């Protein structure tokens, strides 16, 4: 990707590029699927790129940052060659899993490791899934991620071509975790990576899904991803989103979760690396007795900017949601947390909790948090809390009086603070992997 001039109008640029993209589809522009894309680009035209006045991007000057870094020229998407050896370096070591590898948003059959013997588990590329079963995919695609609300969701929907499709049959317990390695290879000239994932978990099913976003190469790369996750009745899904590798990544991610009755959805979002990260996590609890646990951790340094936006929409009675986001900010970094609990009038007997805790390590770091409650039902228990502070001097003193060096004592306390957010990580190998990277980070 080449260095950009500041003068480009991103909004106009993207709309124009949609025309080129459309031509390349070669006559496939009459399908229902493409009609959705067209609707999305129209929404994008109306929404425009967010600016300072856009409430949801108030603290994240994303348009300015992207403009500074990228020259969004449309180039025909292709898979840059990355050797199998290079890929294996990036995998989570020792994790026995179904591995999906997306390179710049394109599904790579040869790099993925999908020996599926389990009946009823389908893991394929999004493109062929759509082509082979258009009715099924069409009935879910873009039905949950609302492209008329968020410009980046609209953009992803408009340019959606490839990604991952996962379907877990009713009553199936998936034996191994499914890992989606989404690699942004910046050495190749590619204007943007826009993977699209669709995950459907049938009734009474159970699965663990890890989305691992990796930035490979020295140049900056921009990823704009959307994952739609449908959790059917009584299903149980563990979902992890990792942003651990690649300091020069620009990432906008939108995870849209839809939960049916009695289902459980646990998520952990870990943001350690990246210049700009924006995570949107929207969970809709559309029936009774649903449960959603959302944990997040961001450790920032230098000029990193991480923005976590979460929204829990309680639509029906008797559901439960719990949210815990923790942040440690050093250097010139900026953290943003915007959490919203929305309880609709029907959603009586809702219990919803939210907490955001931050530690600032340097004078130049800043954190903006906006925990919000919007409650339209009366018989509820909802609370949120937010704190910003620093390490307790007395605790530091205690450790130092017992012979720990200052750096060691600080790391230990910070580690203890951070580790709370890993409570929901149930895969041991994964926990070690995350833990390892946190430790490296804190000892740096």
């Amino acid at each position, binding site marked *: 990707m080449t260095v950009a001039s500041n003068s480009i109008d991103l909004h106009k640029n993207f709309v124009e590029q949609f025309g080129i993209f459309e031509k390349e589809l070669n006559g496939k522009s009459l399908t229902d699927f493409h009609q959705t894309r067209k609707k999305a680009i129209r929404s994008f035209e109306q929404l425009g790129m967010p600016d300072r006045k856009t*409430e949801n991007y108030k603290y994240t000057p994303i348009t300015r940052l992207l403009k500074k870094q990228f020259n969004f020229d449309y180039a025909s998407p292709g898979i840059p060659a990355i050797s199998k050896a290079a890929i294996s370096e990036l995998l989570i070591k020792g994790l026995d899993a179904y591995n999906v590898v997306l390179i710049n948003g394109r599904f790579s059959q040869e790099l993925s490791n999908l020996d599926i013997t389990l009946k009823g588990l389908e893991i394929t590329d999004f493109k062929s899934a759509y082509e082979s079963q258009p009715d099924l995919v069409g009935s879910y695609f873009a039905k949950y991620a609302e492209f008329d609300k968020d410009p980046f969701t609209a953009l992803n929907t408009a340019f959606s071509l490839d990604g991952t499709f996962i379907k877990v049959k009713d009553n199936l317990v998936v034996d191994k975790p499914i890992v989606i390695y989404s690699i942004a290879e910046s050495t190749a000239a590619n204007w943007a990576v826009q993977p699209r994932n669709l995950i459907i978990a049938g009734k009474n099913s159970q699965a663990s899904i890890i989305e691992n976003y990796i930035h490979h190469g020295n140049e900056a790369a921009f990823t704009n991803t959307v994952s739609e996750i449908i959790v059917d009745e009584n299903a149980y899904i563990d979902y992890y989103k990792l942003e651990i590798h690649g300091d020069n990544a620009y990432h906008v991610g939108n995870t849209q979760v839809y939960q049916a009755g009695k289902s459980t959805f646990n998520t952990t979002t870990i943001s350690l690396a990246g210049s700009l990260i924006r995570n949107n996590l929207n969970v809709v609890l559309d029936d009774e007795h649903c449960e959603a646990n959302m944990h997040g951790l961001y450790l920032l340094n230098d000029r990193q900017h991480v923005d976590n936006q979460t929204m829990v929409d309680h639509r029906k009675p008797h559901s439960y949601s719990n949210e815990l986001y923790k942040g440690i900010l050093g250097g010139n970094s900026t953290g943003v947390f915007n959490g919203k609990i929305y309880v609709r009038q029907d959603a009586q007997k809702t219990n919803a909790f939210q907490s955001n805790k931050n530690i*600032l390590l340097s*004078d130049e770091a800043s954190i903006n948090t906006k925990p919000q*409650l*919007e409650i339209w039902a*009366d018989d509820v228990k909802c609370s949120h809390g937010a*704190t*910003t502070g620093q390490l307790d001097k007395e605790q530091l003193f205690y450790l130092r009086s017992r012979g720990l060096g200052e750096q060691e004592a600080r790391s230990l306390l910070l580690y203890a603070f951070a580790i709370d957010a890993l409570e929901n990580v149930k895969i041991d190998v994964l926990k070690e992997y995350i833990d390892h990277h946190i430790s490296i980070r804190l000892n740096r």
Partner: protein
Amino acid sequence: MSKDTEILEELTSSEYKYGFESNIEADSAPKGLNEDIIRFISSKKNEPEWMLEWRLKAYRHWLTLKEPKWPNVSYPEINYQDIIYYSAPKQKVAPKSLDEVDPELRETFEKLGISLDEQKRLTGVAVDAVIDSVSVATTFKDKLAELGIIFCSFSEAVQEHPELVKKYIGSVVPVNDNYFAALNSAVFSDGSFCYIPKGVRCPMELSTYFRINAANTGQFERTLIIADEGSYVSYLEGCTAPMRDENQLHAAVVELYACDHAEIKYSTVQNWYPGDKDGKGGIYNFVTKRGICAGDHSKISWTQVETGSAITWKYPSCILKGDHSVGEFYSVAVTNNWQQADTGTKMIHLGKNTRSRIVSKGVSAGQSQNSYRGLVQIHKRAKNARNHSQCDSLLMGDKCGAHTFPYIETSNNSAQIEHEATTSKIGEDQIFYCLQRGIDEESAVALIVNGYCKEVLNQLPMEFAVEAQKLLALTLEGSVG
């Protein structure tokens, strides 16, 4: 559930006590807003040239602004040309003493329970009575003057203390601050002015009583309080309006200025007419209130009890500029029927070792919407800033809403900030406990709500605390969640 519904219905039918209209002759400007109207207001008040210029500057800026749409409230478009911007009770000469005040006027205030006569005898509270945004009487002026305290109507201050007004007006809320502040700056008709000289502790509560009387008028008053070094003042504000079917606009500006070691305590009991049970009529209360702790070790404390108004939209704020300054905000906002409230505070920490505390209690019943919106901002230079915020919401009935929108922005690593918020309804076990002990359901609710709001009510001066407590009981009469 049927009992609850019944009781809730009963609650919604409780009448507004202060809805009468006084028959006072008023001197009004024609409807509409243009430069001529502003010149008319200015000349009516015999203002100096700079004041008029200031107003016109505000007006011209206002013309470039758009009405903000971000609050969590909805109301039909306001036609700014359909409002009377100036209305004053007709009095030929300025009253020298209270005996000269129009008897009808005095009666009005007596009906409101604020007997100006009585005030003369009772020590404790000095009152500035403002009707349709013009000050009609100020009590205890002489006694305060002995101490060097200036407490008078705004127009009087413009005449008699122009240097003070010129220096401080717009210093906290500039004319271009926001839509309604600009509008107010252009057309404000009167208000209270208060100056506490160095080292003086004001011996009594100062108080302004606002009353909208004339129909179709907007009320635009302006309050300016300046506490010089080491002084202290406690200031109260109360308001009511007659019952009318149309909505009336109230867009006031309050500016507080605290110098070194000064302390200002500002309490409001707001009981504007909230509209009838179908949401018809009522006051739009769009107020800009802001204080600046300009000096070191200064303190500003806002306390508000908001029970009235069809729509309340205000954020009493503190700019903590001086080192070691303190800002406080205590609020109870009760909404019923179709009322909407979007209220909260801003704490802007600029100085070192500044502290702020926010306690906000919202109670919503009927079909009302109650929002807390607050900003805590710690600037880079604000070493060791400390903030604690607590906002609780209580819901009564399943058609109302309670919302919390806090913004916390921290750019300093020595800051310590805590924010917590809860939303729930009155616990059945709490009600049961009371019932068990022979307290009927209604009294139980009153008891629990009172306890819930106690933390804020305790901050009110005694004279007001009693009134506020009664007001709460009245607004929530018979309501069970």
